[in-house]
């Protein structure tokens, strides 16, 4: 009589073919040569401070990610990293991208928000061997409502705006605010008067900026002032414009200034005109205007680039008195060399406050001074911190 097998023995007999099959599979899957080492650690996370639909997959380099040692050119090294993704642990992984050796990061931008994803990094060896890392996940992408990298910037902006509003309030309440004399702005009325005496027009060049540039906004303010004065003095003003939107706004500024001065009939549409949106074609047209009409006074207020010296020298040749102001730092030296008065940097933005002396505008100017004082203190503190090696202070202000 045969002895009956134990349960354990029956289990082993059933498992034996499966184990054999599995071993055979493993053996055939293994390449004949050396095995590439997988990456030791993978993590996946929602990309911070982004609109969403992006997941960052980061990993440590495979130990075989190296240049082959000398004398061992056949050593197996990393050829590439394949980034694989699945939507569940039981799903088949699909390749979504790859990275070259030395890279440790991949941004997957082809995901949907609030959907769980799983990632794996497969190292590909120079001998075509493959090695898979552990899975990372589940990870879900989402958009953020606040960029934490800009927190310091936001705080500074709110402080600055708050200071400006406080100073505007104080100015309206009657507090005296001192502004140092700015020669270029003091000379505006004198320059307009000169044009009237000579019976020649005034040329106002609002620069090559768009209507969204701050320098162009400052140009509108100055243009309004100049147009008002020229209307009072019955002198013509010519405003060649580079940008059509600037032209439409400049036309309104000049028209309303003439109306405020009580001379609406003086306005002629051909005095404020569009020229071209090509830099040097615009310069050629303005130069021609200067040579033909010989304006007594030229204003260059706004954004200028390489054409600044060409304009200023031609105006000098035509015998005009010239007042320039731009926020393009590179062009300021050219204006300084060729013009009678130059508004440097933010002096241009101070024009409105300086010319009108209105309390809200003076308050804004003072706010700028406070802001600069704060920056100067921070620079000094930062220099001390950097010298003493206090990284925390410096890193606090670093933007990512």
């Amino acid at each position, binding site marked *: 009589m045969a002895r009956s097998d134990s349960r354990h023995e029956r289990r082993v007999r059933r498992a034996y073919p499966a184990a054999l099959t599995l071993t055979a599979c493993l053996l055939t899957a293994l390449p004949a040569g050396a095995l590439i080492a997988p990456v030791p650690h993978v993590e996946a996370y929602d990309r911070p401070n*982004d*609109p*969403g*639909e992006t997941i960052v997959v980061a990993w440590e380099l495979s130990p075989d990610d190296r240049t082959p040692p000398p004398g061992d050119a056949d050593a197996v090294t990393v050829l590439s990293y394949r980034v694989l993704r699945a939507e569940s642990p039981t799903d088949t992984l699909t390749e979504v991208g790859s990275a070259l050796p030395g890279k440790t990061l991949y941004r997957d931008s082809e995901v949907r928000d609030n959907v769980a994803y799983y990632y794996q990094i497969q190292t590909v060896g120079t001998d075509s061997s493959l090695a898979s890392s552990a899975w990372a996940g589940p990870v879900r992408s989402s*958009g*953020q*409502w*606040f960029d934490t990298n*800009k927190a310091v910037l*936001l705080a500074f*902006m709110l402080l*600055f*705006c708050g200071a*400006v509003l406080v100073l*505007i309030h104080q100015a309206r309440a009657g507090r005296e605010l001192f502004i140092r004399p700015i020669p270029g702005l003091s000379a505006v009325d004198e320059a307009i008067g000169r044009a009237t005496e000579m019976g020649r027009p005034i040329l106002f060049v609002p620069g090559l900026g768009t*209507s969204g540039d701050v320098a162009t*906004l400052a140009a*509108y*303010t100055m*243009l*309004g002032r100049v147009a008002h004065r020229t209307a009072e003095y019955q002198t013509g003003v010519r405003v060649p*414009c580079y*940008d*059509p*939107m600037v*032209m439409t706004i400049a036309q*309104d*500024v000049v*028209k*309303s200034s003439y109306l405020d001065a009580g001379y609406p009939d003086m306005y002629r*549409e*051909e005095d404020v*005109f*569009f*020229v*071209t949106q090509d*830099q*040097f074609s615009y310069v050629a047209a303005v130069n021609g205007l200067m040579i*033909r009409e010989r304006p007594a006074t030229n204003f260059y207020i706004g954004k200028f680039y*390489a054409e600044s*010296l*060409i304009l*200023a*020298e031609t105006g000098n040749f035509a015998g005009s008195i010239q007042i320039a102001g731009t*926020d393009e*730092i590179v062009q300021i030296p*050219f204006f300084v*060399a*060729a013009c009678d008065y130059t508004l*440097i*940097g*933010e002096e*241009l*933005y*101070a024009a409105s406050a300086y010319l009108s002396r209105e309390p*809200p*505008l003076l308050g804004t100017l003072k706010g*700028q001074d406070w*802001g*600069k004082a704060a920056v100067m203190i921070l620079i000094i503190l930062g220099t001390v911190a950097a010298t003493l090696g206090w990284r925390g202070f410096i890193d606090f202000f670093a933007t990512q």
Partner: protein
Amino acid sequence: MKRELPRMITLVTGVFLALQYYVPHRSSAHMYETLMDWLIVVGIFAILLGIAGLVRQHLTKIQSRRENWPYSVALLTGLFGMVILGFWGQGLGSPFVTAYFTLLNPVQATMFAMLAFYIASAAYRAFRARTLLATILLLSAVLVMLGRVPLGEIVWPPFSLGSLEIPGIAQISDWLINVPNLAAKRAIYVGLGLGGSATALKVVLGIEAPHLRG
């Protein structure tokens, strides 16, 4: 209402765009891109206005035979000519690109080259040692101009005076550019940044609205 409505639109749009910079969410980015698309559309209509005004102005000049009217003919020919040529394709060898390389290219390069002449006359006239600051300016200009060309390095290379190492003009020029020049520029940038923010704040809050004076 004619004054209030534009100011209200300026306020809402200005505050939104100021805060949008800090909000990376997709909906915020989408609204920003929509506004930029609108900006393009408005800009195109503004170009049409500008071109219409330009054509009208020069046609009037031609019709009334005012002084220099032939130049108005040249302008209108160039304007419409390039548009028409563009319909024949824009690859290399096309009439549009040929006109670009034979007309626009040399003219623009010539205009830029005029700077060399103008800087000579500006330097002759303006770089005078009238004051201490003007003297420092002209000395810096001379050192940088010579330090940036091979001739300067031949005339004044680095040399030793006993145990003292005297830098050459190229090193002095580099120091002038990288230290005092850069320091001054950074300071001006800080002022410009604050001034620009203040100006934008004035416009957004309606304290100053030069573009709404009409």
